[in-house]
């Protein structure tokens, strides 16, 4: 591809995000690359490893207790994307701290840990324990709060929908995380995402990640019923790129907080669009499922151009 004249960002150079310097601006998104440990021996003709040039692997969201997730089927492909209903299947916070994080550190994988909890205040103790367990880890760079989960303590509504709750989550985590980057991942399923970003900013976040998946549904024509057992799924992939770009633009213009762009990135050009709007970094989700080297290839393509 030919590169636009305005483009001059070094995506594979370190950059400062809050208290922490991260090694690059192209990351993998939570939930689409597991804990980052399944592909480290994979090979490709054009890329040394799936981590090459990556700024971070955002690990699959972990919850205080492990989860078995939702019934199958959990995925539907649509013409330009997919719906997922994984239901946050994960190994649980303890196993994550005991086995996953040390392995990432040993492999030297730059890591941002995605967390979900059952109440805003539960994030504080989780972050504190993470901090203790990862003391001295050189490759653990930050925490991303997944705020799109039902808030059990407050009636099952999404954490993510209320600015006040977003603020409480961020404040609880920030208090325990002075020296690593803190990100809040916002849901697009609201009328005004800028309010959420402002709340996160005021509560001390270093950046917001936008966007998580969009609520969608597909019908199984054989039965006439929703294809996913829980009816709704999270819509991701190229189809949501224009929606993600709109939300990122709104936040950049309206909230004055650094933004990590997520949603629909499958090619270097897609990532460029987020950077053009002012995103400080990007995450590759669904495309990483098809190609374990997707983010690395995007980083390489964008890196080559800025260094030439």
């Amino acid at each position: 591809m030919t590169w636009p004249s305005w483009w001059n960002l070094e995506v594979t150079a370190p950059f400062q995000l809050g208290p922490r310097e991260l090694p690059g601006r192209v990351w993998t998104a939570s939930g689409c690359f597991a804990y980052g440990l399944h592909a480290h021996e994979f090979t490709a003709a054009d890329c040394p490893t799936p981590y090459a040039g990556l700024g971070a692997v955002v690990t699959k969201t972990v919850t205080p207790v492990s989860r078995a997730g939702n019934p199958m089927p959990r995925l539907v492909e649509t013409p330009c994307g997919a719906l997922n209903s994984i239901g946050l299947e994960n190994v649980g916070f303890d196993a994550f701290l005991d086995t996953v994080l040390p392995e990432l550190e040993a492999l030297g994988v730059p890591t941002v840990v995605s967390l979900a909890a059952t109440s805003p205040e539960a994030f504080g103790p989780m972050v504190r324990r993470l901090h203790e367990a990862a003391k001295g880890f050189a490759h653990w760079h930050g925490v991303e709060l997944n705020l799109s989960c039902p808030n059990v303590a407050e009636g099952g509504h999404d954490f993510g929908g209320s600015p006040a709750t977003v603020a409480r989550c961020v404040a609880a985590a920030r208090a325990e995380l002075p020296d690593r980057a803190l990100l809040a991942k916002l849901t697009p399923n609201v009328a005004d995402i800028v309010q959420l970003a402002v709340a996160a900013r005021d509560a001390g976040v270093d950046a917001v990640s936008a966007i998580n998946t969009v609520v969608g549904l597909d019908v199984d024509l054989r039965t006439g019923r929703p294809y996913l057992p829980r009816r709704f799924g999270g819509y991701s992939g190229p189809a949501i790129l224009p929606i993600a770009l709109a939300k990122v633009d709104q936040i950049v213009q309206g909230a004055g907080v650094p933004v990590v762009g997520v949603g629909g990135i499958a090619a270097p050009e897609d990532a460029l669009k987020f950077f053009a709007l002012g995103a400080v970094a990007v995450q590759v989700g669904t495309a990483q499922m098809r190609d374990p080297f997707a983010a690395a290839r995007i980083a390489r393509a964008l890196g080559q151009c800025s260094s030439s």
Partner: protein
Amino acid sequence: MTGARPSACAAVGAVRSNGLVSSAFHRLDVELDLPFDFLPGQFAMINEAGPRAWTFSRPFSILAAEDGVLSILYRVVGRGTAALAALGPGAALQVLGPLGEPFPTPQADRAAVLLGGGVGLPPVFAWLQRWGRPGDHAFFGARDGGEVPWDLLGDRWRVSVDRGEGLPGGRTAFTGVVTALAASAPDLPSHGSATVYACGPGPLLRAAADLARRRGWTCWVSLEEHMGCGYGVCKGCVVQVADDGRIRNATCCFEGPVFDATRLPDLGSPAPVPHAASGDIPPGSCGGAP
């Protein structure tokens, strides 16, 4: 189960040939830009390259991989396989593989009973090619005689068909399901002295597990599930397995697709028990995964 798997590569492929080898099975041969090794039972994720790629690649068992050419056998069932069937020589593909847990290697004291149903043939076919010994038994079942890839199978495979139509001259086939053919074979190994390797539709796998249980044989099955990534990262392909008497989710793509049939409640093996703890967040609309 079988020790070290060959590590996977994300290869770029070019179609060498792609066409019907029977009335229903297509064979695709793809030249890859990287060396490619595999163990029988493993699969590859395949997709078109470039802007026409589908969101998710599709899993196909590996039939063979020699001199940088990967071969699969497939049936057209939907949009991805229809698109695949339309590709001509030179078309660009992306290939990720080999992936998944292969079939175990042979045991000296046990004969192998290979059971392949329809496009479940590749993994058991590849097993026989790689590991087969004179005393092993190979059975293949298809819907009718026209569907059977006779040239590929040669003489070693005994064939069953649901309906006798389409049998080419000079070929014979048992009419009935492939497990019935196997069960009625005069030269079958005795109680406890065989291992079944099976791949095919659900009913075939259930019948295979049942046959093995009755004969005291070990039984390995290769499962099919919908897949997103094929390499263990999305949790989109889980199957229920029994571990220590409890049922938990295992990824079909990474812990499988080959499983010991006795671990699979869905094949009628152990009695299902409740799920392992689901954590303290209720199911429902969940972050990125409502």
